[in-house]
């Protein structure tokens, strides 16, 4: 059905900026209008990308869970009961049916599924930190935590892209002053 939601939002933003904002007199009202404009931009991006990102994010967490649960069950980590419990939790998250088969998944359903995976990952992060304190093989854990952090980078990039329209600041600072070392090298 045309106009699509993103096309509608583009019209709302244009009208807000070109019709309503010029009529505003108070600085506070202008500031609120700026917030509205940024939020509309976010809705536009989320309409376009959120579903795809949720699917991709959940899929990547699933791969991470398979790698981690395998490592937690093998030497040298297999003796750690807490990590064994986390391996079970990850398996459970992977095998739970979060979406009804045959139905087109809505964004709220994908969000619920993704949140369940993210909660499990939070528990795994806490559990790995505690295992490191409790004498589990540091070298093995460090390698696994590195993999988790690499994933977190990708997840954060996706989240940031969806929220990016709010990041802009009304007044941009000049770039940081060059340090004495950098100046001397020029």
């Amino acid at each position, binding site marked *: 059905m045309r106009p699509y939601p993103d096309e509608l939002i583009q019209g709302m933003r244009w009208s807000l900026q070109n019709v309503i904002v010029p009529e505003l007199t108070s600085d*506070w009202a202008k500031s609120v209008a700026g917030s509205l404009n940024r939020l509309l931009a976010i809705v536009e991006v989320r309409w376009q990308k959120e579903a795809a990102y949720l699917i991709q994010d959940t899929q990547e967490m699933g791969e991470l869970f398979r790698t981690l649960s395998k490592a937690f069950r093998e030497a040298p980590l297999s003796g750690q009961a807490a990590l064994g419990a986390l391996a079970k939790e990850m398996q459970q998250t992977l095998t739970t049916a979060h979406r009804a088969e045959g139905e087109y998944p809505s964004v709220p359903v994908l969000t619920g599924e993704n949140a369940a995976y993210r909660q499990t990952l939070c528990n795994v992060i806490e559990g790995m930190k505690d295992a490191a304190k409790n004498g589990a093989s540091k070298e093995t854990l460090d390698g696994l935590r590195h993999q988790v952090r690499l994933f977190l980078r990708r997840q954060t990039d996706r989240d940031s892209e969806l929220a990016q329209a709010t990041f802009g600041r009304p*007044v941009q600072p000049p770039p940081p002053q060059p340090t004495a070392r950098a100046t001397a090298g020029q």
Partner: protein
Amino acid sequence: MNRDAVEASFREHMPERKNLRVANLFRNVGGMSRQTYFADLEWEEGGQKRQQRYTVRMNHPGGLVVPVPLWWEYRCHKALYGTEIPVAQALWYEEDAPWEPGTSSYIREHIEGVSTPARLYSPEETALRAKIGYDFAEMLARVHMLDWKKAGFDQFMEVPKDDVDCAMHRQRHWKKNYEDNRLEPRPAVTELYAWLEENAPKKVERVSLVWGDVGVGNFIFHGDKIVALTDFEQSHLGDPLKDWASALWRGVGSLLPREELFRRYEEVSGIKVNEESVRYYTIFINTEYTTTCNFPLKNNYLPSKDKDATIASLTLSVPYVCPDRGLREMGY
């Protein structure tokens, strides 16, 4: 905001001012933690008409935006006024403000000057930036050298048990706040808190009053001089180097080269700036800001019937910018 109630409160607290009236009352733009209004007062004294501006600070009617009660900031102003740290004098506090029932508020003197960065950041103001940067480093040194016991800060702030506790008592505080108020699991934030727990600085040069939320926008300058410090809601006792992480996050590095800022600070305070600690606190401050700006989603925006879009915007900006920056600082 009930203007008549504001006027009545000023009359009650300033009975010596004849025919006192609030000639103008308007909301300040900028700063989200509280609402700030300016009240222009007029009265008669010795046959002369007098006028003066005051600041009205209050919580948002929908609830707290920053997870610290307003009285904390009020007590900081009370404790700092009269020391060598320039702050506006806090005058009186209302737990249930007559001008906005159910909302706490306090009145303080207004200090002439600007806090918004527009002028400071304009390209032709290089000399002003350098002067303010120099001033800022001195001012921060003074905050950190303050005798906080004498000023009474230990009466309402937790005193760290040892050097490691300087970071850890705040890590525990904010982690609990984050867990209590988060609506969604955020693995990156969980990882940041885990990293902070495992890497707390073992050596702290001095337990200081930490300003907390520091940088461009949170001090007032007049001409080429800083005349007042503001925004003490995240202040606490701890490692002074945390303030440098916050200051650099909030644009102070645009005023003067980092080394020059540190050099002046070290000259005045005698506190050596340890870059590893500044890095640790950069990750800390990104985690703390994520937590503070996530808080109003559950405690203000969603439950309130007055949905303020600026708060929705806040909860989508800082809580997503900061984990990104924190991970980068960790090397990811």
